[in-house]
């Protein structure tokens, strides 16, 4: 049984189909990059994974649980913008990852202190402990996205969804964010879905690269058909296939 199962998912807005017959299975700990042209349903697919929208047909299950009706703590998300709360300082943004699940969205007493300590540990890990008391608006774009990722992870989700998380960053910051994300992932082994416009980014970070495109195209009515997963690349080992021996071969391997 795979960790994330997308079964025969269709999504249409009114009469206009967006996604058709999407079938994907993902194992625990895989990093899935999702690429494709504008308007080919990558973001729709992410919203479906997020349970922000319900598919018109088909189902998405995570870890064998029943399909979610609305976004919940099993899915963490980072958008291109607006992923942190501007009225809370950096530490409180991380604490929110634990506190928001409580009935009034706050922690009190020793629980609160413990959460703040865990938040400080998280800030240490994402390299933001020196700005713990600052408001997000004073941070650079890269720092804000690091904070958003840290906040999402503080809630301990099953899968992490990234919607063009580095799209608004300059190239240098983007590269350092790649290192940051790979390092973080090496530590916690999270299952990640990342939508990106940047092919090289998708191949660099992902274990698999899903390409969304329209397999059928009616030139007189471009909206007649929806998109689906047209390629499913193995992007491990720099995209060179068959580098990982999957089965036990009983021959000596180089160490």
């Amino acid at each position, binding site marked *: 049984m795979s960790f994330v199962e997308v079964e025969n998912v269709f999504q249409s807005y009114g009469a206009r189909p967006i996604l058709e017959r999407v079938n994907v299975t993902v194992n625990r700990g895989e990093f899935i990059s999702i690429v494709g042209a504008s308007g080919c349903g990558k973001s729709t697919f992410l919203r479906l994974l*997020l349970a*922000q929208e319900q598919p018109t047909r088909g189902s998405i299950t995570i870890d064998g649980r029943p399909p979610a009706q*609305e*976004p*919940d*703590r099993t*899915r*963490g*998300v980072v*958008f291109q*913008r*607006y*992923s*942190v*709360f*501007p*009225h*809370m*300082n950096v530490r409180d943004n991380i604490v*929110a*990852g634990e*506190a*928001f*699940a*409580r*009935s*009034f*969205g*706050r922690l009190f007493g020793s629980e609160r202190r413990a959460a703040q300590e865990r938040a400080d540990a998280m800030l240490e890990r994402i390299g933001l402990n020196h700005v713990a008391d600052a*408001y997000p*608006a*004073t941070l650079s774009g890269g720092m804000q996205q690091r904070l*958003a990722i840290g*906040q*999402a992870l503080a*809630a301990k*989700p099953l899968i992490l969804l990234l919607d063009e998380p580095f799209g608004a960053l300059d190239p240098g910051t983007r590269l350092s964010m790649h290192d940051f994300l790979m390092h973080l992932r090496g530590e916690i082994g999270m299952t990640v879905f990342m939508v990106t416009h940047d092919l090289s980014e998708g191949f660099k970070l992902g274990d698999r690269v899903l390409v969304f495109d329209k397999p059928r195209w009616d030139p007189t009515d471009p909206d007649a058909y929806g998109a689906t997963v047209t390629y499913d690349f193995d992007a491990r080992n720099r995209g060179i296939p068959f580098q990982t021996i999957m089965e036990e071969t009983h021959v000596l391997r180089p160490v």
Partner: protein
Amino acid sequence: MRLINRTPSPALRAFLVLVPFALAFVVYLVASEIRLEANPSDRLLPSPGTILDTAVSLLTVPDRRSGAILFWGDTWASLTRLSLGVGLAAAIGLVFGMLIGLLPHVRATLSIFVGVLSLIPPLALLPILFITFGLGEVSKVVLIVIGITPFLIRDLSGRVMEIPREMIVKAETLGASSLVIALRVALPQVLPRLVQAIRLSLGPAWLFLIAAEAIAANQGLGYRIFLVRRYLAMDVILTYVLWITFLAWVIDWLLKAVARRAFPWTEVSP
């Protein structure tokens, strides 16, 4: 250089700020001078000296009948009504603004209704308010509430709906319930707008207050103005007008200062 690119130096700016005030004063002075020359007992445009004398006596000489200084009594009565009215309107506006902004069902039920309500001229309801709530304090406070609440509800619900969907979804993925989203995401971001909306609605609030006091009251700034109007006591009226202007300015300044202290995150530039 284009005019839009020319900026005054700090000294010139300070001077330019004072120019319209000085000009208004001079125009009044000249007009008053002309009228007083034609008729020294003219009451329409009293000289600034007369106004000052009146102001001093208003502030120091107690009323012969009651022994109290009416000026402070009027100020106290008006400010009480104003703060009650604006406070109630702000509370109602905040609650309904948040409900309409956050909950689609409430929005579907109320947003058109509030839009229609806001078109009713509040002053046209004044007779009904006097009949329903009597001539006491309640009707005046209710007039202010009716006058500015629809605006506050619409402004605040609009602000709540401006909160990016991403931020709400993010809160959902952190496990926040609707209540938590309201209290921890929407409310803190709406409060600065509430202060701003109150500042904007203080003008109408004063208007409704003075209108209500003018028609039925036994003290209050608006009441006094419309009482002494019968004796053409322009010196008293002008003193009260200047005082009201000053009060309005101080309240506005205080609200601005409170907002700056209470919401430091709105001050930081991105």
